């Protein structure tokens, strides 16, 4: 009997050890990076939320990402984390009387912000609307494709992130992977987002986009001047959105966003809402301005107007 018992004991211990090893192996294979993965994979796995990184942590993260991207895209990639400029709150103006619906902004944005080319992700959606119906979204044509724009009887309304004062997307995020910065730009930490897409359900403007697939970004087309919260390359399975070209506008001297720069008819305006002399303030005070879905109380800082 004692021998029997001891053998049973040993058998049990063996099997438990084996079982634990098996469990560890399965967990490792499913959830965690492989054993022979470089240390940076583990660093990225355990990386904290952007807003909880100490200055040294942040430095480490940025240099790790620069190394990773530079190797992947075979060029010197800069990843900055320029903070908001004090006394600045960005506002955007869009002159509906000027827009011709050419979609140059859509593609300038894609090039500047390193969106996936395959499948295509666009942060700007230009709607073709009927002059007789006015701004009626149910009547909007999203995939208009004539040889020449503008088409008779129509006007065009580009929609992108409205950089709300009360962003519903921020409120719903279960892990605080998205937030509004002090200069009013709502950003996403692509290393913290879990990809639940609740923010996409909450956004009233269709401004949030998901990486359904590993983004296809050819090295040759990759813009190496990037911001951590903006146009750096995104991983699969996370949400992204317009950041008012945070990598441009926070620089000193600042640059206009790519969409403002490219617009051939000057329909797009951009400036500091806190500066009484800015173009945006002039527009808001002197033109007929409206915001999209005003009744939802999201308080966009994206102003549509008719200048002429």
């Amino acid at each position, binding site marked *: 009997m004692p021998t029997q018992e001891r053998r049973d004991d040993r058998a049990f211990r063996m099997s438990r050890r084996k079982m634990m090893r098996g469990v560890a192996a399965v967990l490792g294979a499913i*959830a*965690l990076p492989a054993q022979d993965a470089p240390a940076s994979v583990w660093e990225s*796995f355990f990386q904290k*939320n952007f807003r*909880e990184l100490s200055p040294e942590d942040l430095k480490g993260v940025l240099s790790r990402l620069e190394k990773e991207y530079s190797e992947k895209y075979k060029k010197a990639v800069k990843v900055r984390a320029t903070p908001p400029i004090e006394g600045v709150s960005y506002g955007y103006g869009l002159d509906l009387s000027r827009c011709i619906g050419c979609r140059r902004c859509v593609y300038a944005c894609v090039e500047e912000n390193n969106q996936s080319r395959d*499948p295509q992700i666009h942060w700007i*959606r230009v*709607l073709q609307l009927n002059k007789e119906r006015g701004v*009626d*979204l*149910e*009547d*909007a044509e*999203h995939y208009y494709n004539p040889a020449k724009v503008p088409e008779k009887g129509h006007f065009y309304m580009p*929609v992108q992130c409205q950089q709300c004062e009360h962003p*519903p997307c921020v*409120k*719903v*995020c*279960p*892990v*605080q*992977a998205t937030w509004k910065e002090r200069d009013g730009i709502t950003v996403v930490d692509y290393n*913290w*987002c*879990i*990809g*639940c*897409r*609740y923010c*996409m*359900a*909450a*956004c*009233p*403007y*269709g401004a*949030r*986009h*998901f*990486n*359904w*697939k*590993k983004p296809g970004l050819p090295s040759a087309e990759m813009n190496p001047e990037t911001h951590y919260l903006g146009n750096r390359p995104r*991983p*699969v*399975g*996370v*949400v992204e959105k317009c950041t008012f070209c945070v990598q441009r506008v926070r620089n000193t001297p600042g640059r206009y966003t790519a969409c403002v720069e490219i617009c051939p008819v000057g329909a797009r305006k951009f400036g500091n809402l806190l500066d009484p002399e800015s173009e945006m303030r002039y527009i808001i005070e002197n033109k007929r301005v409206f915001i999209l879905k005003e009744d*939802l*109380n999201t308080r966009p800082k994206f102003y549509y107007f008719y200048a002429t």
Partner: protein
Amino acid sequence: MPMRMIWGFFKGTLVLITKGSKAYYIWMVTLLCFMGIGFLAYLYQLQHGLIVTAMRDQVSWGFYISNFTFLVGVAAAAVLLVIPAYVYHWKPLKEVAVLGEMLAVSAMVMCLLFVTVDIGRPDRFWHLIPKFGILNFPQSMLAWDVVVLNIYLVLNLTIAVFILYNLYHKREPSKSFTTPLLLFSIPAAVSIHTVTAFLYNGLAARPFWNASILAPRFLASAFCSGPALMIILFQIIRKYTRIEIKNEAIFKVAELIAYSMFINLFLLGAEVFKEFYSNTIHLAPMQYLFFGLKGHSDLVPFIWTAMIFNVSAFFLFLIPQTRENYVTLNIGCVLIIIGVYIEKGMGLVIPGLVPDTLGEIFEYSPTGIELLLTMGIWATGLLVYTLLLRVAVPILTGEFFVGEDGRTAVIVDTEFIRRADHLAEQSYRD
């Protein structure tokens, strides 16, 4: 000593779940096959990304979240139905409280799996765990849902295991432990369903969901689908095991379904009236669901099927003669399960997203991968429920209990345990 007692119990359960009739093995192997297929589908999805689903930016939630929503209702209703009877000693239902708890546990497991397969970065699940990550509580309704669903799972598991473990030791489970927990599970069941409804309800961007009637409708429809499922399970359990469930109990449950279905249909009618009569811009999703919009009508046949099924089932359960006839009763149950599965699943999630916030109509219907994965998760839920029953049933019928030495498990012959004659003789020692 207690460790050895628990180990004895655990060993007994291992024997129970590994030994069984041929039918049991076939059933389990079938489920395992479906789970395997589902797992492979999940690996494929992990490798390629969620692009293998039919979801896109316009319709960013689909079949997975539809199933999740339906199952939260099942989990809530199973408990809401059975616990009051247990607490207030309504005899015919008292014995089966544990069966309801276990259905809730299985449904919760499925819910958590459906959420897991839906998220883009399952490797970052730890971001949701307070201390390690950041849980955006109380701001995000999804954070609330994570909290209440997990509490509910643990709560039901605790109650069920506690009751069963005591019965196994031939003790009456301590009232001072079970009654407060059982009473707490009633508001907990209401809360998982309310919070899940609020998750949709709180989005002003989606007029179809942003209606105050949504949470009451959730509860009403859950009170139809959960109990309908229970009626069918009760009949299966009493047919194949020695657990006795009285006709009286089943008919009472059916009567409750009739009232719930009336409330469900009434609330739906109130919503339909408001949208169609006021005819505002917010009518579009409702129109898409019931009649199609601009030539897009994928959901129309489904929602009308659901409507016809629900209304027919209402009458079957309302009339005592059909309610108390097992043929019509079971037809009614199946009609309700399908009807609510459509109405509360795709019929709720998809019109919330179609037309999208900029008026685009993007029609969604799940891909093969989504279907296979979903079947895998349902198979997992059924497997969990089968395993739980496998242990619970012999305990409830007094055929699995602790031996005289207080440690060894005794398994008496039961209908579904083959080779029982030698098991009954030979008790397992540790």
